[in-house]
Structures are given as structure tokens and as C-alpha cells.
């Protein structure tokens, strides 16, 4: 039977329709889309489609000088100009077309080994790229889960130590339960020629890297990248999912959130929530974990590597600020209690590595030294602006306790403090460790604190400390 010809008007519509169709020559093949990459702590949006697609990923390797800690700079080798590199999200079964571009100003050749790739080198051998060039390779995301990627150009360890790692999440076909907030956190360590806190541009130390003694252990590439105004946030009642990676290169992480219990842990970043009600989860170097939890009460939760000296002395401290109404049933007025202190109730001696660079004589030099000591030793607990953490670490800003008695403040820094005190009307019952600062450091850091944040503006001399 002959097909009846359409009427002229219908024919016009038909032709326009065919023209549009002809613009999509591969409409039978998978849809092509460009991956939306995000920088930590942001996670790429949930993939809503339920079919496979071809996903194009574009990442550029760049070597940049950036901030490792206050006053400390480092030449980072990066994916996408940041440490960690951008987070990639694809769906199980997707075909990923990867474009690795090495910026022309780079000195080094770079490549990428994605642990999500099934194939030799995880793509490394196919993506070795010298400066000013670009490589392309494709892979099928066969296995769902959270995977680390890193540079694997020789010497592999050095490329990783300089910041070349990130995460790719292969969203399972059998999707994870929806949550309200998702965040991207990567722990890693840095090995510098100078000791922790030594200012200036710090070269990489191969010796310390081989002996696995880092000067910095950090979240998201630098000390303090996840605190205060850069803290991640949630509201009471929301569910939070953390995609946590460990770039290494050497240390394994005892990942813990102070004041929370993980409701679900996808151990080692697999697609199965195989454990419930977990306090600390182990994340191997070159590995990951996905943790979910509901936040029930307001306050600041502290992200740490519970190998705890790293946290308080080398930088692995982040914050999740939770806003909302208190819930006295879940958490009552027990804020006098110590939250968690691995050092125990007694005052510990803690050797600090921070030495003033030069002997300070003018008030300006003394204050500058004090600022440096403060930022490397005190800011982890008392916070950058001296605001403290309510109920846990007393504030130093506008502190009635501090301003009332200079001699007492000196003694606290010399010997530590243990037991209940009241600061600005709020009770604290905690331990401040003995920090083993030199007299000069104590004088300068106290002078600094007294001259900050609305305190009474007095100087403390070295003689007074003696």
C-alpha cells in the first residue's frame, strides 16, 4: 500500500522536524554531555538521568605557588589549579572521554591514573602529557563507588606529594539514598624543607617524604581550608554526606567527626553502605570513604584525623557548622563536660616546633612574631579571630578572663591549665596543654593577643615571663 502523502502544511512541519532530527546524527547512540566539575568542598550535582551517557571530562594540569598555611607558600602541582583537583561525577556504565591538558607554563610532564579505570595504569600510560600538550583517552565506568585519581608520572610519590590528586564518584545505577547536603573532603600531607610554621616559599623535602614524616597534614590542600568562614554548613535535621578521600602520599587517615556518629559508612568508598553507627573510619592512602549522618543539634562539629597530633599540630582540622534549634533531649546542658580530649585529664607537655625567625626587639617585630606563633600553635583551638569554640575552647577576643590578670595568663602559657573557669559568662572545664614555648614566644604571643580583638592593648615583656 502506498503511503498517503501529507498535506502541504503538514509537509512543512514534517520537513522542519526532519531538519531538526538531522542535526542530531547519532540520536541512537548515548547522549553526550560535559562533566560538571567542582572544587572542594563542593560536590558535583546528583545525576538524575537513568540511562548511560558519554561524558566528556576536561582537566588541565597547572603548577602554581599557593598558600599552604599562614605565611607558608608552596609550589603546588595541581589538577585544575587546586588541591585537591576538581571532583568528577559520572554514572555507572557511562563512557568517559578524558582530556588531560598540561598547561604550557608547566615544567613537568603529567598524567592521570584514575582508580575508577579498569585498564593498565588507570589511564596513566595513555595520558602522559608534556607541557603545552593535551592527551585524550576513554574508559567505561564499570564499577560504582568513590575513587581517587592522581598523577602517576615518575617519580609518582613526588607528583602526589605536591598536590596532584582528587576524587571521581561513579554514581551507582542502584542509587545511594538522597541526602540534603554533600561535601568533598580530601586529606593529604606535605613535606617541606622548613619545619611546620617556617614562613616563606617552602621547597619539597624528598628526605622527609621517604621517611614519611610530614610537616603538614591537611584537609583540602592547606591548613585552615575548612574552618570559620570556609567551614561546611548544614541545618539541624538535615542529612549530610561526606565524600572523603585520602591523597596520601603516605599516611592512612583515621577520619572522625567530633560530635557526630556516622549513620552509614560506605567502607573504602564502595557502593555498599556496609556499616552503621561508626565513630572513626579508616581511609587508606589512595583510598576513600563515603559517610552519611543526620545532624540533630546545632553547634560546630570538628572534622579530624583522629591520629590526633596531626590534627592539632599539623593542620588536619575542619569544621561543619550546624545551625538550628537546640534539642535538649539529644544534647542537654552538659556543655561543661570535656568534649573529647585524647591527651587525658592531666596537663600534657607538648613540644612545639615554632621558633621566632629573628630575635624581635621593636613592638612591631614582637607582634609579628606573636602572630606567627598564634597562627601555628593557638589558632587551631582558639580560632583565627580568637573567638574560640563555645563550650569547648574559651574565646581570647574581648576576654574578661584574659584581661583581668596578666600574670595568670603568663602562668597558663608556661604551665598549661586544667579545671573549670568562666570566660565572658560561659563556663569551660577543659585542659589546655603545656605547650613548651620559649619565654620569648610566650611574651610575643601574649602581646599579640592582648593587642587584638578588643583586648586591653598591653605588651608582655620577656622579663615578666621569667
Amino acid at each position: 500500500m502506498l503511503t498517503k502523502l501529507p498535506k502541504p502544511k503538514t509537509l512543512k512541519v514534517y520537513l522542519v522536524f526532519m531538519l531538526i532530527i538531522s542535526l542530531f546524527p547519532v540520536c541512537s547512540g548515548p547522549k553526550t554531555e560535559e562533566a560538571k566539575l567542582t572544587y572542594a568542598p563542593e560536590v558535583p550535582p546528583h545525576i538524575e538521568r537513568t540511562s548511560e551517557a558519554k561524558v566528556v571530562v576536561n582537566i588541565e594540569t597547572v603548577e602554581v605557588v599557593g598558600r599552604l598555611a599562614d605565611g607558608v607558600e608552596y609550589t603546588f602541582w595541581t589538577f585544575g589549579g587546586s588541591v585537591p583537583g576538581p571532583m568528577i561525577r559520572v554514572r555507572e556504565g557511562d563512557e568517559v572521554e578524558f582530556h588531560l591538558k598540561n598547561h604550557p607554563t608547566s615544567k613537568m610532564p603529567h598524567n592521570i591514573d584514575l582508580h575508577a579505570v579498569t585498564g593498565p595504569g588507570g589511564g596513566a600510560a595513555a595520558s602522559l602529557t608534556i607541557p603545552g600538550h593535551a592527551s585524550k583517552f576513554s574508559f567505561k565506568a564499570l564499577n560504582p563507588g568513590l575513587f581517587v585519581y592522581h598523577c602517576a608520572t615518575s617519580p609518582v610519590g613526588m607528583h602526589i606529594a605536591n598536590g596532584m590528586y582528587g576524587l571521581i564518584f561513579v554514581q551507582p545505577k542502584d542509587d545511594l539514598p538522597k541526602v540534603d547536603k554533600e561535601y568533598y573532603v580530601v586529606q593529604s600531607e606535605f613535606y617541606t624543607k622548613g619545619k611546620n610554621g617556617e614562613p616563606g616559599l617552602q621547597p619539597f623535602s624528598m628526605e622527609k617524604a621517604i621517611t614519611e614524616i610530614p610537616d603538614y597534614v591537611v584537609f583540602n590542600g592547606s591548613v585552615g581550608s575548612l574552618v570559620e568562614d570556609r567551614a561546611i554548613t548544614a541545618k539541624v535535621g538535615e542529612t549530610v554526606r561526606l565524600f572523603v578521600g585520602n591523597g596520601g602520599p603516605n599516611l592512612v587517615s583515621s577520619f572522625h567527626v567530633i560530635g557526630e556518629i556516622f549513620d552509614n559508612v560506605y567502607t573504602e568508598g564502595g557502593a555498599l553502605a556496609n556499616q552503621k553507627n561508626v565513630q572513626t573510619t579508616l581511609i587508606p592512602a589512595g583510598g576513600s570513604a563515603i559517610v552519611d549522618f543526620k545532624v540533630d543539634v546545632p553547634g560546630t562539629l570538628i572534622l579530624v584525623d583522629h591520629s590526633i597530633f596531626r590534627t592539632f599540630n599539623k593542620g588536619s582540622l575542619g569544621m561543619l557548622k550546624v545551625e538550628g534549634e537546640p534539642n535538649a533531649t539529644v544534647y542537654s546542658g552538659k556543655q561543661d563536660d570535656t568534649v573529647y580530649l585524647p591527651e587525658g585529664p592531666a596537663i600534657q607537655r607538648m613540644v612545639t616546633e615554632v621558633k621566632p625567625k629573628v630575635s624581635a626587639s621593636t613592638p612591631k617585630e614582637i607582634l609579628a612574631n606573636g602572630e606567627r606563633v598564634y597562627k601555628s600553635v593557638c589558632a587551631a583551638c582558639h580560632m583565627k579571630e580568637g573567638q574560640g569554640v563555645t563550650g569547648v575552647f574559651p574565646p581570647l577576643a574581648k576576654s574578661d578572663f584574659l584581661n583581668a590578670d596578666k600574670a595568670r595568663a603568663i602562668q597558663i602559657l608556661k604551665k598549661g591549665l586544667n579545671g573549670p573557669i568562666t570566660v565572658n559568662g560561659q563556663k569551660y572545664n577543659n585542659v589546655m596543654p603545656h605547650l613548651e614555648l620559649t619565654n620569648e614566644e610566650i611574651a610575643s604571643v601574649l602581646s599579640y593577643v592582648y593587642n587584638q580583638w578588643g583586648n586591653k592593648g598591653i605588651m608582655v615583656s620577656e622579663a615578666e615571663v621569667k
Partner: protein
Amino acid sequence: MKPSLFICIFISVSLSAEMVKIPAGNWKPFLKDTNAKLGETIKIKSFYLDEYPVTQKEYFEFLKANPEWRKGKVSSLFADGGYLGDWKRMVPDNRSANSPVTYVSWFSANAFCQWKGKRLPLESEWEYTASVPQAGKSKKAMESVILGWYGEQKPEYLPSVGKYKNSHGVYDQHGMIWEWVFDFNNTSVTGDSRQDSDLESNLFCGGGSLKANDFSNYASYMRYGYRAGLKGWYTAKYLGFRCASDNNIKDNPL
């Protein structure tokens, strides 16, 4: 071309490109390849190597005599689009006249050396010479020069040659640029490269530690890794060259 620039190049201090005699000796390659077993030493015959990397000024002389290698003229088969990418004009910037020429391809470097009556050094010759530390200093000191270069701030202009000298009197093999060698793809290509599926196994992850003679020599991995990423027509910001020869070829001072 601005006449003033042209003159500046000619009156700037000239480093006469002398060659240094490298004595014969035994050398243990950093990586094992198909020709050498792990730990085996290779005999290197005596040869001559340029004292300095080829400078921008010297390269400009080459372009004057060989216009087919000028920026914009060269065939894309022999140099990629980045060729002489830091030259804003047809001449080098006066501030970098004595800096190493970079953004040059293997083909152009090879042509330069031939024009001089020389050749590119073999990888083994280059590495053998580069493995010698500064006079009175250890290999560790040399390694720290290399690692220091990896981590330092990038200068706006490459420094003039003559910064770092080893005890043979050869300058700047470390701490300034990468250099082309004649057989730059020697390490990664074994046998027939079209069929070799295990092409770069020497250089990645496990391969690096299974096949290296000296695990502590991290700085060397990078050079082998870099070379493995090259093709003959590639050019790059920090990639230059110098020439070698079996005889001492005296240069007319430019």
C-alpha cells in the same frame, strides 16, 4: 624587525660556544632497557659536548642562515604550533639573548647541530655527563639543585646560561631546562613501537621501581618520564638542547 633590537643582540656579551671533552668511562644507566640488564654498566666512548645549552642568540644565527626554520615558516611536520612560542617577534627578546633557546622541536634541534657540523648527544652520553656532580660536591648536592628547580618560582625570563657547572666544566644540565637528546624515545620504545603493548611500562608506578638502578635518584625519573612523553615535533617552554660531537668543533665567535 626593529634595528635597535637587532643591534642589542649583537653587542650583548658573547659566550663562545666551546666544546668540553668528556672522558671515556663506564656508566650505569638509571633504567634497565632491552639492551642492558639491571645493574649492568655501559662503556661510553670519549666525546665532546657543548659547554652551554644553545642560547637564543645562537639559535637566531641559525635562523638567519636557514630561513626554512624561522618561526611561521617551519613545516608542522617538524615543529608544533608552539615553536619559538616565547618570541614575540622574529628575534629573541634582548633580555633573554643569552638564555637557553626553548620551544624548539627535535627536528629543529637536530638541524641546528648539523648546521654546526655536530649532532645531538645520545641519551647515554647526556646522562653520563649529567651524572657528574659539581667539583668538590656530592651527588646529593646535585640532586638538591634538581629538586630545588622543580619547586622554585618560575622566572619571567629564563636566566642566562652559565649558572650551574659540573666538574667536567659542563654548564646547566640541571636547574634550568630539559634538553633534547638524539634518541629521546629510547627508554619507552622497545622493539617495534607499533606493536609493543607494554610501551611505557618502565616508567609507571611499579615499573619505575622494578627497573631502576637507583631508587633514591628521584630526580632522574622525571627526565626519563619527560622524554617518554615527547614526540619529535613537540616544543615546550622549558625544553632546549645542546650539541655533541666526536671531534672538537671550534665555533667562530658569533
